[in-house]
């Protein structure tokens, strides 16, 4: 009898031992959350998408070339011809912005020694004359939650450093005086009637763009910041860092963050409402994480694994089983159409992904 019991104990011990080392989701569970992968098929699945915007009727992405498609479902992507009329072959664009009802994009030449801001007029690109000859870099658009207080910022490279230009009407471009940055402004938000702009580990803050400067309200970290987002539902700003933290500046004027650093650095945010809860997504070097708030943030930041955690809401289907969960997501774009959220994930080398509702859950597919 003892022998039989010993054999049974060894038997169950062996399989428990083997079953201890696994990925973020069980095998059967991962099959349960899998469906056919929808693919628009008109866009290469290996492109790197820098950013995405929407005009009135069309989507645009900057992915080397600029691609566009109509907002309506099932529309096919097509390439917007690069700027012409110069002797430079413009082919590298990762920056695009929609501000003041205009589409702006930065194109650089193959050698990377010129980078110029263009505005799309009709179907042709026209160089923005106010910044002619300047080496434009990152475009950052900010507005308040109602879409007012629009601003477009352009980091301009000057002898190894950066100056910052802005426009408040899409026509007049002005330089922020007496401001030299070692890093370009990579993201920004309109936070409680103030501009918050990220530049490396610095946050530029101020309500007056003629005197914006490094602010005093900042998370206690030396890491570079990855993205900033002001939650209109929670009325608090979120800031991510490339050492794996998400910081929230609470209404009590306190910074809170996740207690354990994420293995991968964080980038851009987006926000949506699901079942009355505020859902914040943050892109990372390996997919994205999710934060769910039924109410105001508490004392710490809890990061959920989408499609795995029972509490996650943004995607139950085709996230953890696809390459989206292991690739870099630098930017999100969210489009609310007839109360239906479409989330787009801009990846590095894995194309553009779209997240749409599917029954009682949400599903990821490829564009």
């Amino acid at each position, binding site marked *: 009898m003892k022998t039989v019991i010993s054999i049974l104990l060894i*038997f*169950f011990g*062996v*399989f428990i031992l*083997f*079953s201890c080392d*696994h*990925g*973020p*989701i*069980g*095998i*059967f*569970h*991962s*099959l*349960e959350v*899998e*469906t*056919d*992968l929808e693919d628009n098929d008109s866009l290469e699945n290996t492109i790197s998408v820098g950013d995405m915007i929407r005009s009135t009727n069309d989507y645009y992405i900057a992915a080397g070339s600029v691609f566009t498609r109509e907002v309506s479902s099932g529309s096919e992507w097509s390439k917007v011809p690069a700027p012409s009329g110069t002797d430079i072959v413009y082919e590298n664009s990762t920056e695009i912005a929609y501000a003041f009802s205009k589409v702006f994009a930065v194109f650089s030449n193959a050698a990377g020694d010129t980078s110029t801001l263009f505005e799309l007029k009709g179907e042709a690109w026209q160089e923005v004359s106010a910044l002619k000859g300047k080496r434009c870099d990152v475009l950052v658009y900010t507005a308040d939650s109602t879409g007012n207080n629009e601003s477009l910022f352009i980091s301009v490279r000057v002898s190894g450093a950066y100056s910052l230009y802005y426009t408040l009407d899409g026509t007049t471009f002005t330089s922020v005086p007496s401001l030299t940055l070692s890093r370009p402004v990579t993201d920004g938000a309109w936070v409680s009637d103030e501009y918050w702009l990220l530049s490396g580990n610095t946050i530029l803050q101020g309500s007056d763009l003629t005197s914006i400067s490094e602010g005093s309200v900042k998370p206690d970290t030396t890491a570079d910041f990855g993205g900033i987002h002001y939650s209109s539902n929670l009325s608090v700003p979120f800031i991510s860092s490339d050492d794996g933290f998400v910081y929230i500046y609470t209404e009590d004027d306190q910074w809170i963050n996740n207690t354990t650093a994420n293995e991968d650095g964080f980038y851009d945010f987006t926000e949506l409402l699901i079942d009355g809860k505020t859902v914040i997504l943050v892109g990372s070097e390996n997919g994205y994480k999710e934060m769910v708030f039924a109410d105001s943030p508490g004392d710490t930041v809890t990061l959920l694994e989408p499609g*795995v*955690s*029972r509490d996650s809401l943004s995607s139950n289907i*085709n996230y953890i*089983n*696809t390459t989206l969960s292991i690739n870099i997501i630098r930017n999100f774009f969210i489009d609310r159409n007839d109360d239906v959220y479409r989330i787009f994930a801009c990846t590095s080398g894995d194309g553009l992904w779209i997240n749409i509702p599917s029954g009682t859950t949400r599903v990821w597919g490829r564009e």
Partner: protein
Amino acid sequence: MRRSGSSLLFLLVLLLLLPVMVFSQQDPENGEEEDIVTPMYSLGDQMFFINGGIMVPLFFQSLTGEVKKTNLSIGGAGSLAWSAFLNNKLFLGAELGGMFAVSPLKRVLIQIPITARIGYMFHRYPFDFPLLFGTGIIFTKLQEELYVGPVFKPGFSFYWNITNEWALGLNCIYWWVPQIYTKDLKNSSRFGNFLEISFSGLFHF
């Protein structure tokens, strides 16, 4: 068409009655009919099985009882098994099997069970009807993920002994595969439910 249907029905009835006719013999001395049952197998008789067929993924069940689709295609299953009789009806043995099925994202689920099994065989010459129960460990592989856990396989078979050594038949085996995770993955625990339907070749020796 109708005539051929009637013929088929007649043949089926004949096949079903055949074992009864074989087992029922007339006692020549007193003229009464009595069953004479001759043991077909005895201690030490052995069997070797080769099975191949389809695997029907049925459903996954969570620890809370929630039932979800597997999203898997109908797959394939096969196995080799050996058994030895303890008496005319009871036999013990072991089985090495395998199955595969494909997910919507073209991921291939592979499961390899190694089981000990016990069977109880009903005889109706030339037919055998074994009831089977197997348990052991199963290696479940999906891409880079591997899970080793228990498996329980109840089922039944039907065999037609075409010679003294060879029989052909059909298996219907239920695979119950618990995947129990702990700690952070507790919510990922599932009970896998599959149905194997396979043809079988049986060799007596």
